[in-house]
C-alpha cells in the first residue's frame, strides 16, 4: 500500500481558504457528512455577496453543526445550547452594522432553542438562520429530536420514534418569518443562492438544509452512507417554490419538498422600533447611540 504524498497542482490553494481558519482544518465532521458541504456553500455565498468580512458575525450553538463557527474566519461565537439566536439578537442590536448569521442544528434551534426561534421570527429580527437538519442529535451519539421523522430509529427511540415531528418551515412561517426556504446538501447551488439572498436582504431569514448524517442517523436506520442519502435526496426531492409551508411535512424516507417558500418584505425589528418610538416619543427621541468605540490605534499607545 503506497501513500500518495505528491499533490496535484500544489501551487494554488483552495479559493475559500482565506475564509477558513486553516489552523483548524481538517474539521471534525465525518466522511460523507453534509456539514462540510453546507459550510462550503455558506462561504461561497459570503464571498459572492461582497459583504466586507469584518461585518460578518457567525453565532452557533452546540452540536455538530454548532462547530461550524469554529472553522469560519469571521468573528464567531460558539455559545450555549439553544441560545445562539438570543445571543445573535443582542449582537445585532448592539451593532446594527453587523450581518449576523446563526449556523446551528435542528436540535439546537428547534428543540431547546425553539422558543427563541419563534420570537425572533415574530419580531422579524434582522438575523439569518442557517438550520442544518440531520434529523437527530448527532454530536451526542444520535438521539432523536423534534425533527426526527416517525418510525426512525435513534438511540433514544430504539423501537422507532412515535412522536410527530415539527414541520420547521411551517413553524417559522406561522410566526411571521419573511424568508423561508428548505434545500438539501445536494442542492448546493440553491443553498448558495439562498444564503446569498438571505445575507443581502433585510429581516429574518430561515434556511433549512437537510443534510446526511452517515455515522449515526443513516447507520441506525440502514440508509447507507451520506452519498447514498444524497442520492435519496436526488431521487425524492421535489422543488416547489412558493408552496404553502403546511404541505412540507417530512415523513421517514418519503418525498421531500424543497424550495423557497416565503420571500416577503416587512419592516425589521429595528426599523419598526425606531419609527414607532420616533412617532410616539416625539422630538425627545434619541436613537440608539451605537456600540462603544475602541480608541484608534494611532491615538492609543
Amino acid at each position, binding site marked *: 500500500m503506497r501513500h500518495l504524498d505528491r499533490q496535484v497542482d500544489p501551487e494554488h490553494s483552495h479559493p475559500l481558504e482565506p475564509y477558513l481558519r486553516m489552523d483548524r482544518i481538517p474539521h471534525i465532521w465525518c466522511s460523507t457528512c453534509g456539514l462540510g458541504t453546507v459550510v462550503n456553500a455558506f462561504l461561497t455565498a459570503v464571498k459572492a455577496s461582497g459583504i466586507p468580512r469584518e461585518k460578518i458575525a457567525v453565532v452557533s450553538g452546540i452540536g455538530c453543526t454548532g462547530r461550524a463557527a469554529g472553522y469560519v474566519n469571521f468573528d464567531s461565537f460558539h455559545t450555549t445550547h439553544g441560545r445562539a439566536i438570543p445571543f445573535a439578537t443582542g*449582537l445585532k442590536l448592539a451593532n446594527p452594522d453587523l450581518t449576523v448569521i446563526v449556523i446551528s442544528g435542528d436540535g439546537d434551534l428547534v428543540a431547546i432553542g425553539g422558543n427563541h426561534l419563534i420570537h425572533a421570527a415574530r419580531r422579524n429580527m434582522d438575523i439569518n438562520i442557517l438550520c442544518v437538519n440531520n434529523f437527530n442529535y448527532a454530536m451526542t451519539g444520535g438521539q432523536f429530536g423534534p425533527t426526527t421523522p416517525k418510525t426512525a430509529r435513534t438511540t433514544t427511540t430504539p423501537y422507532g420514534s412515535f412522536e410527530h415531528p415539527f414541520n420547521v418551515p411551517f413553524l417559522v412561517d406561522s410566526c411571521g418569518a419573511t424568508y423561508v426556504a428548505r434545500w438539501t446538501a445536494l442542492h448546493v447551488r440553491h443553498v448558495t443562492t439562498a444564503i446569498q439572498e438571505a445575507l443581502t436582504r433585510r429581516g429574518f431569514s430561515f434556511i433549512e438544509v437537510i443534510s446526511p448524517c452517515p455515522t449515526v442517523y443513516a447507520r441506525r436506520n440502514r440508509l447507507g452512507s451520506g452519498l447514498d442519502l444524497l442520492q435519496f435526496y436526488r431521487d425524492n426531492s421535489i422543488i416547489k417554490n412558493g408552496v404553502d409551508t403546511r404541505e412540507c411535512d417530512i415523513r421517514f424516507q418519503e418525498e421531500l419538498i424543497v424550495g423557497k417558500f416565503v420571500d416577503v418584505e416587512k419592516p425589521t425589528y429595528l426599523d419598526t422600533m425606531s419609527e414607532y418610538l420616533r412617532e410616539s416619543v416625539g422630538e425627545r427621541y434619541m436613537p440608539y447611540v451605537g456600540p462603544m468605540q475602541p480608541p484608534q490605534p494611532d491615538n492609543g499607545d
Partner: protein
Amino acid sequence: MAANELTNPLLTGAHYWDGDFACAEGAIAAGCRFLAGYPITPSTEIAERMAERFPLVGGTYIQMEDELASMAAVLGAAWGGARAMTVTSGPGFSLMQENIGLGVMTETPCVVVNVQRGGPSTGLPTLTGQQDMMQARWGSHGDYEIIALCPSSPQECFDLVIRAFNLSERYRLPVMFMMDECIGHMTEKVVVPRPGKIHVSQRRWYRGKKEHYKPYLPGKDGVPPMVRAGDDFRFHITGLTHDERGYPVINAACQKTCVSRLVNKIKDNTDQIAILEEEGTEDADVVVVSYGISSRVATRAIALARARGIKVGSLRLVTVWPFPENRIRELARKAKCMVMPEINMGQVYLELERIAGTLCKTTLLPHCGGWVHDPQDILEAIVQGAK
C-alpha cells in the same frame, strides 16, 4: 423635574427615589445603553424605568421571551460593543445561570441585577430575602470566582451599580448586583452628582496589532484586553475549554491553564476588589458582619448595644464576593465574637464561620425571609457575644 430633563443621562440633583429607580439611573449614568430583561417582581421597576429612559438617552431596551434569552442577549450585546445589563429576581436568576457561566468562561463584561426575594421556587414574590447569596457565588456549574455587590440604600444602588460596571470591565466578567426587595422598594434621598464627579471606567480595549491579537492572552493582572465584533479581528470565542487563541482544546492541561486563570484573576485580587465599610472595629469585643438590608437593621441594634456600654463594631460587606478573608481573619483575632444577621438560613455565614470560627466565637442570626430582623434579636446576640 421638568420633562426635558429626562433626556439627560445624568439627573444631577437631590431626588426621592426607591432603590430600583436609583439602580436604573445609576446604570444609565454608568453608560449602560442595552438592557435585555424579563419582568419579575421585585425587579420590574428597574426594567420599566430603563424602558422609559432609553429612548430618550439613546439606549436599546428589549424584553426577551425569557431569562435565558435575556442573559444570552446581554452577552451578545457586550460582544457587539455595548455596555449591557439585565435585571431579575430569584427564579429568573436560576434560569440565567448557564449563560452566566458562559459569560464567566468567555470573560464578557456585563452586570446582572438580582433583586432578591423570598424563596425557594416562587416563594414570596413581593417580600424580601437574601437567599441567593450562595447562588451568586456558585450558581453556574464548574469552578469559577465571581464578584457580587450588595447595596444597602437607594443612594448606594445608584453609586454601587456604577462601580459594578467598572469592576465588570476591569476584570472582564459578569458582576452580580445583589439587591433585595426591601432596598429595591425603599424610598430615600438619592443625590446624583454633577458630570465629571462620576468615575466610569473605559472598556479595556486591545491596543496592539491585529495580527498579534489573541483573545485570551492575559495581561500582567491575569485579565486579557477586549475587542468587539466588526473590527476585523475575526476572533473566535467558545464556552468550551479554550487556549489563548480562543480555540477549544479538550484536555486536562488546557483546563488547568484556562480555569486557574479565571479563578485567580479574582482570587489574587480580592483585597483590591473588596469594598468594606467598617465602623468602631478597632477595639470591638463584638463585630457585627452584615450586608444589604440587614446592615440597616444592624445599625439600630449596634446603637442600642453601645448605649449599654458594649464595645461593638460593624463590618458591612459591600462586596460579598470575593469574600474578604484577610480582613475577617484580622478582626477575628481581636474580637470575642462575630455576629452575622442574614435573611436566609445561613449562607454567607458559612464563609464567616470557616474563616473566623477557629479564632473567635461566631453567631448566625438566620431569618427565613419575608421581613427583616427585629433589632432586639440582633441586640441579644451582641450581648451574648460580649460575655
